[in-house]
């Protein structure tokens, strides 16, 4: 089995999860407030962290490797940018609309993909994501090679009072969305529904023989993951100001896989750690050696698979002897 997380989860929230959660939020707040790290960069990291958590819900807790999550992230980004630029909706409604679009797309792609298992599931999701890429490339509403920009005269005010032009406000807004998504995932994993998902991951034939409609559970998990990936992608548009073809192309699917792998697949906090490390590396390289980003990503892939399969948080959890 791919995930290292223990199959038995305690009922209720263990105390060290509260502690880890508090550390995570405190680190984010401190990074913005005390260390003076550029808030827009932090907001971008949070978007990717939520994206990676959504992806991890599938690979870590259902055992499904989706190699096409860029489709949900990217189409949500386009939906969000479209709603903002063409309809002039306020940011929170744009993001909600984006998550809804991603969920609908997830229901269609997921419905096809769960008909096969294992390695075929990965290939099918990748193929459908490529189809979405070609559609984004040719369709008029995506702006083709140029992508969609949020116009300068757009009123970036969320909920009527949060001015997202202010970088610090933008950061707190994105942190709020990230925490909502993160807690939803946490709740799902630790619910009876989540226990069934883990049972499917551990032994699908047995879950079937116990009378569970395995396909239905997988589909719901897939739609949930797609919707949360869409939530992240839709929010990202207000951080970077645009949706582009790179958001929907296959390297983006690979990137989110790498974040989860590096941070620790099947851990709760791992994808966040993976996203922080990877986006920091990319940001650091972007000015110095941008061309080497994909080579270094590939290198991290190879190293992680060969020698570091538990990932950062997975290794940490092993040292602490506690699931994180």
């Amino acid at each position: 089995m791919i995930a290292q997380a223990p199959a038995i989860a305690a009922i209720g929230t263990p105390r060290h999860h509260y502690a880890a959660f508090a550390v995570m939020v405190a680190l984010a707040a401190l990074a913005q407030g005390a260390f003076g790290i550029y808030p827009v960069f932090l907001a971008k990291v949070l978007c990717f962290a939520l994206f990676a958590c959504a992806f991890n819900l599938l690979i870590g807790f259902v055992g499904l490797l989706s190699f096409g999550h860029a489709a949900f992230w990217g189409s949500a980004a386009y939906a969000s940018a479209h709603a903002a630029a063409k309809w002039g909706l306020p940011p929170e409604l744009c993001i909600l609309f984006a998550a809804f679009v991603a969920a609908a797309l997830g229901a269609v792609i997921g419905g096809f993909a769960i008909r096969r298992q294992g390695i075929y599931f990965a290939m099918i999701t990748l193929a459908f994501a490529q189809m979405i890429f070609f559609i984004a490339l040719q369709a008029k509403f995506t702006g083709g090679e140029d992508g969609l920009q949020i116009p300068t005269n757009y009123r970036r005010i969320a909920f009527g009072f949060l001015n997202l032009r202010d970088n610090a406000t933008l950061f707190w807004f994105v942190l709020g969305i990230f925490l909502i998504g993160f807690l939803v995932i946490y709740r799902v994993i630790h619910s009876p529904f989540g226990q069934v998902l883990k049972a499917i991951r551990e032994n699908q034939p047995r879950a079937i023989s116990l009378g569970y409609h395995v396909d239905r559970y997988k589909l719901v998990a897939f739609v949930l993951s797609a919707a949360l990936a869409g939530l992240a992608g839709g929010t990202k548009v207000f951080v970077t100001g645009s949706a582009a073809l790179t958001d929907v192309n296959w390297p983006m699917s690979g990137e989110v896989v790498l974040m989860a792998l590096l941070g620790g697949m099947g851990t709760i906090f791992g994808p966040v750690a993976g996203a922080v490390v990877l986006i920091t590396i990319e940001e650091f390289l972007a000015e110095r050696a941008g061309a080497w980003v994909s080579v270094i990503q590939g290198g991290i892939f190879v190293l992680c698979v060969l020698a570091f399969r538990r990932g950062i948080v997975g290794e940490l959890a092993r040292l602490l002897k506690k699931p994180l």
Partner: protein
Amino acid sequence: MFELLGVSPQALFGQLLLGLINGAFYAMLSLGLAVIFGMLNVVNFAHGALYMTGAFVAWLLLEFLGVGYWPALLIAPLAVAVLGIAIERTMLRWLYKLDHLYGLLLTFGLALIVEGLFRNEYGSSGQPYQIPETLQGGQNLGFMFLPNYRAWVVVASLAICLGTWYTIERTKLGAYLRAATENPALVQAFGINVPRLLTFTYAGGVALAALAGVMAAPMVNVSPQMGSSLIIIVFAVVVIGGMGSILGSIVTGFGLGVIEGLTKVFFPEASNTVIFVIMAIVLLIKPAGLFGRAA
């Protein structure tokens, strides 16, 4: 000549030929993928990158050593096979006992590295590669103009596919391969060196990809991203055909190429996506793939 739905026969047969050629590449690549998956349980994401490497080796040979197309047809696959042996011996070997997904993740990383290195060295714009002199020009068949090189590619790739089929289904080596796919422990107990067989299989599979790359070089610009766009379509082809049968891979590959070509004539907007649509339909009707065995 006849007119069909307002499409000139030149355009129709031209696209049919292009479709056959694309299909030839789908067939050769999915064949290698299927053989590697059957033996190693690894979905080789690096297949596209190694196909591109094959094309680049041919281009480099011509550019810097003046070695032409015909020797390159032999040298490039050999070079890539050596690379494949190194990959299998140093990396893939350690993953056989793990979940299949790790093989996919590792080879995906390798694909990123190889593609990134070539892009850093030669940029993203393609390098032109001359058609060899002996195959320049073409035949006028009356209803269409047939370039010699394209005819050669269709014939040669068919021969390569059938040769692979023959090797696997009709020779002693192929019998070992098929037996080791079914039950490696038993085959090893009979005194056959299965680890070496695995190395050989991977090297052979990627050499096939490199050979396809050399054959593609004169028709497309040799560029670092020529592999990744192709490999994803080949994945869809593999899902449609199923990886269980060699002849099935060949038929599916050529068939889908032709369908794609015809789509280009009658409904050009959908030509990029038609294979994915077919994949969706096949998943609805026959989830195991046209030639696949139920998992």
